[in-house]
């Protein structure tokens, strides 16, 4: 471009700029860009810093428990297991998921205690969990994270966040504030009712003789496209023994007594559970994890879960699996339960944080597992 052209252009530009119309247009462009940027930040929650977000939930766990490098922010103390699921084909009536085709798929699992303290002592009343990953053909997966209470204590993410704070020891005093819990229960009759139901299902003696429940409802879709509300659980083959009373005496109740018993049991022989699908009827609540379905609902025994090997988190790759309850195969879909998406979102934040951290050794060490 030569100088003359350049000068002409400058004149043109200056002329355009001098007109009020151009200034108006310039302002319009600026306003449009500002609006788009504003909408983007609004969508990202920048203008609502106190909103309940996945990060806020995990921040609450960290505030209550501290940050334990490399550990899950909840269900932090755990041990990894492997085995297989043997389908009997009964589940195919309600789901086309390939996990229900008769035959065997390998599974990964993790037994854990609820709470964000990876080195806490085992106690008889701590909620126990079992997470399972079913490996289906062609890379499909079904992941489920279950606990040993039949229904959940709350039915929305907001109530969960409030319940978490009310039921946890205050990080400043180290003690649960009973007034906070009473106030929460007074405001939330659904939680008081759920706790009564949970109280009618006393805990077993350990991990191995406990049932585990998926809590949330899901939709099963069969080969015809029929959608059915379903809740599932695993019921132990091991005879259910009554729970121990809590004893502060370490000789009677070692720090890892629940895990040590599980390790000894799996070393002695494989542990088995039946996968039970509870089939909902039209009208059964699917969006309320704190409500039980009527007890007469059809139950389908879909097959057996067997764990025959156990390994410390220090060496097992299962430590690096996010047991996101919405990793589902074709044939199983989320229900309208708002807790499902919230669990998925919060687990993802916990997973992202811990995967970027240095991994501290697990309380259930390799030598503990070899005992």
């Amino acid at each position, binding site marked *: *471009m030569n100088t003359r*052209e*350049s000068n002409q*252009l400058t004149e*043109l*530009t200056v002329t*355009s*700029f001098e007109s009020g119309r*151009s200034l108006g*247009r*310039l302002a*319009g*462009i600026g306003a*449009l*860009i500002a609006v*788009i*940027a504003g*909408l*983007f930040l609004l*969508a*990202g*929650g920048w203008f609502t810093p106190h*909103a*309940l*977000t*996945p*990060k806020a*939930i995990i921040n609450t766990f960290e505030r209550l428990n501290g940050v334990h490098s490399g550990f899950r922010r909840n269900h932090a103390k755990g041990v990894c297991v492997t085995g297989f699921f043997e389908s009997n084909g009964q589940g195919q009536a309600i789901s086309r998921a*390939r996990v229900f085709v008769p035959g065997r798929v390998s599974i990964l699992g993790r037994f854990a205690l609820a709470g964000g303290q990876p080195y806490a002592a085992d106690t008889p009343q701590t909620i126990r969990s079992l997470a399972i990953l079913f490996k289906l053909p*062609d*890379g*499909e*997966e079904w992941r489920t994270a279950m606990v040993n209470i039949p229904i959940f204590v709350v039915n929305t*993410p907001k109530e969960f966040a409030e319940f978490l704070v009310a039921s946890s020891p205050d990080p400043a005093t180290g003690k649960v504030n009973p007034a906070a819990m009473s106030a929460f229960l007074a405001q939330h009759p659904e939680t008081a009712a759920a706790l009564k139901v949970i109280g009618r299902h006393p805990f077993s003696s350990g991990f191995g003789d406990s049932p585990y429940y998926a809590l949330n409802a899901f939709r099963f879709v069969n080969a015809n496209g029929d959608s059915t509300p379903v809740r599932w659980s695993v019921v132990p083959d091991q005879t259910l023994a009554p729970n121990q009373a809590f004893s502060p005496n370490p000789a009677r109740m070692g720090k890892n007594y629940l895990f040590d018993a599980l390790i000894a049991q799996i070393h002695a022989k494989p542990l088995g559970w039946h996968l039970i699908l509870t089939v909902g009827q039209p009208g059964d609540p699917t969006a309320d994890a704190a409500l039980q379905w009527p007890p007469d609902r059809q139950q389908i025994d879909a097959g057996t879960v067997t764990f025959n090997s156990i390994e410390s988190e220090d060496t097992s*790759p299962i430590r*690096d*699996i*996010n047991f*996101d309850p*919405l*990793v589902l*195969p*074709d044939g199983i879909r*989320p229900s309208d339960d*708002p807790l*499902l*998406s*919230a669990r*998925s*979102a*919060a687990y*993802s934040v916990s*997973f*992202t944080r811990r*995967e*970027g951290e240095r*991994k501290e050794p697990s309380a259930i060490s390799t030598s503990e597992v070899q005992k």
Partner: protein
Amino acid sequence: MSNTKSPAQFALLSRILHWLMAALLVAMLFIGVSMVSSLGDYHGLLAIHRPLGILILILAAIRLATRMFTRAPALPRSILQPEQYVAKASEVLLYTLFIALPLVGWGMLSAGHYPIVMFGAVHLPPILPAKPALYATLRETHTILAYLLFLAFLAHLSAVLFHTLILRDGLLNRMVPWPVRAAGGESRG
């Protein structure tokens, strides 16, 4: 720069892909930033985010090939040499992000030991080994690149609007989906 042999517009396929991808990318940026701050909509948005990202990757590959094998129209004479460099660099940056963002997302899910679900039983294979630290790094990278793409989009939009509404040099004619014969928009007022 001689523009006697230059076409007035980008190839038709490039122009169609430009506007289609513009809509998809803006939707994708808003889906992405919304989903990470949402509890209730997280899963539904993520279920769209994954296949949409792969669709954008495929469209970006087609567009890059089209761009490389067809002639681009010359820039209007209003664009001086330094601005030409900026325009070129921003084009390279945008194409890089169109391809890098979905690949980082795909690699991140692979490294995080997630199945890469598209829809129904349709899955993609992992493209990286399951490695925790790699997952964490790629997850962070995905966010940074997404914000960079949003800023690049704003800059691109600002520049095009400035040329079209203030300088009125017909820059936008190069990319409009309908045919325009001559380059330059001064006479059109």
